[in-house]
């Protein structure tokens, strides 16, 4: 069902949805509006302050990384039985966030969802930067990180190969592939705008730099044809990756014997959760930026409404998975599964996190049933932040609470994070923000060419 049809259906009962583009800007106006932040960033002191905070966070990250590599994983709170904790939680959380970008740019492109146009660049960048954060953790998490490449199949002189029965080499491959394709896809999408930047750049240096990165894109019809073809092909390539990455990440858990991990529902459950948290992060970032940069005409309430609906849908897939997990635990008759789901999670140490997850992932998204909530950017940000808290809690519950209470009660032990654990997590947020701010500063974060194209299409439709 296309957007217009949806709009037509709903229009009879409720006021019509906001359009995808407000007003009728000319190409020149649009280009000026969307490119100008690159040359003249608004609110310079505030921007510097934000950049300073991000840089501080990045420094914290560097410190925590140094301590971890210098002294060993012992500076974290991990123990036996909880051999995985913050490191893997943060990895899965960041990777999950990284799912929205490719989903929006590739899947929605293939489904011809026009509302993706204004936000795809932005979400792709978010994906890339989230995957960068995510990629740090499996590395740091190794006891001997300097041998990380042993997980990669390379022709070693000792002829030792990775163990392909384990999920981890696949995991490394999946994350790396995902990062590479996302980077190429993002860069490809950026080409026409890089060309625009080159053409509009005020100085020679910038013109040269943007010129190099624009790879000679001139905007000719021939180039455009090839460009569209390649973009479509890459979208087709990226689409299965959205599903594969988190499916393989979920295999890190699903292939084990650990009660509550040993489950076939994990791949779809993880993918849904990833998209859920990814959209939440898009909303979290989009709303303030839309306001700061005065982009209400390009990123309309319609976009926010669609994002909110996606959150609602994925939240229900997640809720359904929770129910199935509980049912299977009961149906399996396994005392270990039953203990994990009905005793350990609700009542054992750390159960507060479990209840946080219940509230944030199950109850809070239900507010999105109301259109008025969906139309309120402020409320949407609050909900999105809570959803991401909930999704982080979900990974904590799956990883830590399961490991805390597995088979032999004699080896049960509780987990508590250390300052280094927290510093690493906060530090990656700082680093993410740093990359994101730099991106906002250096590139048009709304694809100028595509929005202009959309504007033409919309005008053509109006005339009809």
């Amino acid at each position: 069902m296309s957007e217009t049809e949806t709009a037509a259906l709903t229009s009879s009962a409720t006021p019509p949805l906001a359009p995808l583009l407000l007003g009728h800007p000319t190409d020149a106006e649009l280009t000026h509006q969307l490119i100008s932040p690159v040359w003249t960033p608004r609110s310079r002191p505030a921007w510097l302050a934000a950049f300073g905070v991000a840089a501080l966070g990045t420094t914290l990250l560097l410190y925590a990384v140094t301590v971890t590599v210098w002294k060993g994983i012992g500076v974290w709170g991990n123990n036996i039985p909880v051999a995985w904790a913050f490191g893997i939680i943060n990895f899965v959380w960041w990777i999950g966030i990284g799912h929205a970008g490719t989903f929006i740019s590739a899947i929605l492109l293939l489904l011809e969802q026009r509302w993706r146009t204004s936000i795809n660049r932005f979400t792709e960048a978010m994906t890339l930067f989230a995957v960068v954060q995510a990629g740090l953790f499996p590395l740091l998490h190794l006891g001997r990180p300097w041998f990380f490449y042993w997980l990669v199949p390379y022709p070693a002189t000792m002829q030792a190969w990775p163990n392909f029965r384990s999920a981890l080499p696949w995991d490394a491959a999946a994350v790396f592939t995902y990062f590479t394709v996302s980077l190429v896809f993002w860069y490809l999408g950026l080409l026409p705008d890089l060309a625009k930047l080159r053409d509009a750049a005020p100085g020679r240096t910038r013109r040269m730099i943007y010129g190099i990165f624009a790879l000679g894109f001139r905007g000719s019809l021939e180039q455009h044809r090839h460009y569209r073809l390649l973009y479509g092909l890459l979208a087709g390539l990226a689409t299965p990756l959205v599903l594969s990455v988190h499916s393989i990440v979920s295999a890190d858990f699903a292939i084990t014997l650990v009660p509550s991990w040993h489950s076939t529902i994990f791949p779809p459950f993880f993918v849904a959760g990833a998209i859920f948290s990814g959209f939440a992060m898009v909303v979290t970032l989009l709303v303030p930026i839309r306001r700061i940069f005065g982009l209400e005409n390009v990123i309309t309430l319609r976009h926010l409404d669609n994002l909110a609906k996606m959150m609602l849908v994925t939240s229900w897939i997640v809720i359904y998975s929770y129910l199935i997990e509980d049912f299977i635990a009961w149906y399996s008759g396994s005392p270990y599964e039953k203990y994990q789901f009905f005793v350990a999670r609700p009542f054992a140490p750390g159960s507060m996190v479990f209840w946080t997850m219940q509230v944030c992932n199950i109850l809070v998204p239900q507010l999105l049933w109301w259109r008025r909530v969906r139309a309120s950017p402020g409320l949407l940000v609050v909900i999105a932040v809570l959803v991401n808290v909930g999704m982080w809690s979900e990974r904590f519950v799956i990883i830590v609470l399961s490991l805390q209470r597995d088979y032999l009660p004699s080896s049960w032990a509780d987990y508590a994070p250390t300052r280094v654990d927290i510093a690493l997590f906060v530090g990656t947020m700082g680093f993410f923000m740093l990359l994101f701010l730099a991106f906002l500063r250096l590139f048009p974060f709304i694809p100028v060419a595509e929005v202009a194209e959309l504007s033409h299409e919309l005008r053509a439709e109006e005339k009809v």
Partner: protein
Amino acid sequence: MNDDEPFEPAEGRPGDGEPDGITRRAMLELCGASVALAAATGCGQNKRDKLLPYTVNPPDLTPGIPLRFTTSLSLDGYATGVLVRVNDGRPSKIEGNPEHPASLGATGAMEEASVLGLYDPQRPRAILHRRAPAAWPALTRVLGQDRPDRGAGLRFLLEPTGSPLLGALLDRVLRRFPAARVTFHAAARSDSGSLGAGLAFGRPLQAVHDLRKTDVILALDADFLASGPFHLRHAQHFAGRRRIAAPGAPMSRLYVAEAALSPTGSLADHRLQRRPGDVHGVLAAVAVELAGLPDVALPVPKEALLAALAPHAAREDRPLVGAIARDLARHAGSASVIVGEWQPPETHALGHLCNAMLRSESTVDLLSPTLVSLGAQEQDLAALAREIDAGGVDTLVILEGNPAYAAPADLDLERLITRVATSVYLGSYDDETAAVSQWFIPARHPLESWGDARAYDGTISLIQALIEPLHEGSSPAEMLAVVAGDAHPEARLLLRAHWQDRLKDRDFEAFWRDTLKLGVVTGSSSPAVTAPIVPGALLSALAAKAPPAAGIEVALRPDSRVHDGRFANNAWLQELPRPLTKLTWDNAALMSPALAARLGVTDEDRVRLSLGGRSVEAPALIAPGHADEAVTLHLGYGRRRAEPVARGVGFDAYRLRTWTARSGAVGLEITRLGGAKHPLARTQMHWSTEGRPLALRATAAEYQKNPDFTAEQRGPLPSLMPPLPGSGAGGPPQWAMTIDLSICTGCGACEQACQAENNIFVVGKEGILKSREMHWLRIDTYYEGPSEAPRVIHEPMLCQHCERAPCEYVCPVNATVHSPDGLNEMIYNRCVGTRFCSNNCPYKVRRFNWFDWEDHVPANQGLVRLQRNPEVTVRQRGVMEKCTFCVQRLRATELGARIEGNRPIREGEVTTACAQACPTRAIQFDSLSNPGSAMARWRREPRNFAVLHELGTQPRVNYLARIDNPNPEIG
């Protein structure tokens, strides 16, 4: 095992003969020898015995191939014979000596850990006089000088000893100084046993229980399976009677009355929780019931006995004690009563009486005391303290024992020692006593000393030095010889001279060689004597004993790890979980759940314990199964002037100990202190199986009725994976282990042996608090039933070497793989440390190197590196490790078999360190290709099961369900 040549310095070896003419080669050899000799002379003091390097290799010595030598380790006067593995001159592992009656091939945790003490970097290295370095000759001048007073002001304080050499030296000393007096004192021994025997038999005989023939045992506050002089022997013999080989087969029965759960109590069929003071009442009630049975021969007048016991017996429940008494009487001749070290003499005497009633001639041997006693020239510690206080002592020679710390608090020896004009202390550490003594001489470690010792049954064994002393020091024998007049005594020469003298015409060199090789002097055990009960003194003592007072009783007991405090600086023992509480790096006030609830105290709360005007602060620890109205405190902690490892560990329970109440007293007051809790580092926090079929058990009757009660936890399971190679008889080895839960006492000797064999680092209290202990083998202890009277089961848990190992398929880099002979192997240098394997190990037996433990924990640094087993990789930071089934031993055995014509490995040819140490032989290891081995026979028993069998991991470690044998008469 012990077919190696005795260790001797190279004198008399080939190469020592007079050269006829000096060749160039011989000249070079001599030059080399002189250089080495010059270097060696720099190390020792007053050394006249020369150690020369080998110029021609002795036939048995190949660099890299370890040798084993016999020696003995003594604790409070009683020896345990051991074999010491020596790797290229470094003692590295203690193993049991099968020929020695106190070992029978097994070792306890303390013996295993004593090798670490040898290399303790904190051992003192110099003689001190008034805290300044001093020289040995100055000391010998002080000690060896003539005294005009015939020794009237000269006092010796030493630990009890059975050593014939020390006995002879003391005789020499007392001949020179007849007015001198000697005090034997050990903080962790009581004299109630000999006093009790004195009451019963009129002389201080020693009771030695022969559990090979005992079917019913009543143990009264007696942890005879895990502590005390003959516990390794007791454990093995008890297990022989206890292990039920088939449903319906006979097995022994054990009744225990005690306060805190002990390893022995955890195996009991019926356990009576009693304050230590109430234990006498149990025995009295049993004795009354026994006396009333028709065919019991009573050696004392019945009426008088009943009258004497009535006030005590009345407190017990008649049907219960009646059933115990009838059970004992039914097995008269194969039943015995064992009374614990810390029970009063009257209880010991009554125990002897009960044993007499039970016709225990064949189960209890009575021996003349095996410790050195000096009659009138001996005085007790209190008398010594009084004399010092009165100013009658001018020279006090303290030979080991740290009395300033470990003597009863009311004697205040720490202050008194400073009042002695000349105080000389030979001690293992620069400790509390060293601080108040004028002279301090570092004591040699047993592994660098020469001497002799006696076991509990009198068997004599030699103590053989296995390494050149690491530091300057001396030994009790040398110190006594100095006092006796020798200017330059040398323990080895003293020992040889003593035995040469003693053997007279026998071929001394042959004796010396054979004894060092065997580890014991054959036929030297004391003969049993027959002694009738002497009714008079016994009855009056029993009648005079007052019934116990009401109130909270405190029980002061030596610790199962640091003993009286002597092992406090041994990081292995500090970190070895105490049986039943799994506490490490601390001691605590153990109390029952009911008492804790009454006091409003929970685990780790700080409490003040006051007794007779003295008080200490301690963390509380709720101990399931502890007697109500009683608190157990372990001695040996809270050292005031401690070495770095022992510093700040625990609280000092000696502060509550008085001379007359060394085992404890009634009247303890407990106040809960506010403020922060005292974190206690325990290796297990959850004690229930949560109803999971993890540690199976049944009674003997149930087992007979339903032998297949473990059927659901064993047998083949469907699998999608390819079938495994078979393990037919006589084929290539397929290693496996079987553990019988019926006879596991949870003592921890296996865990300690594993640590010593496999270079396992300690992680310190911080590490334990973070659940990062590195022990490859742990003992899971589960409590079932009400916490006031729980049923306990111990389950040693180590890598199960699963045939379908969950850890293997998840390792991304193939660092853990399966060997063709059935081992789950860990390849350290391939491991990148994802810890995926640990997550997927349902047994949680994998251990991770969270840090470079050597760098991170000071206790792993310094000289202790010399202890390490060169056959085992020291693991670096960031890699996973776990039990290897002692693969280094398997591979060495395989190599040997291959060299000998590629023969198959024989049954029992190789075993793991844990199985080797186990006092009850509960762990059996062998290849499945040897179907006649105990390991293979055991797993054919119907009660065989696999932990978490339903997961389909097919573990190579199987368990035999625990069988208890409760008395059907007791509900």
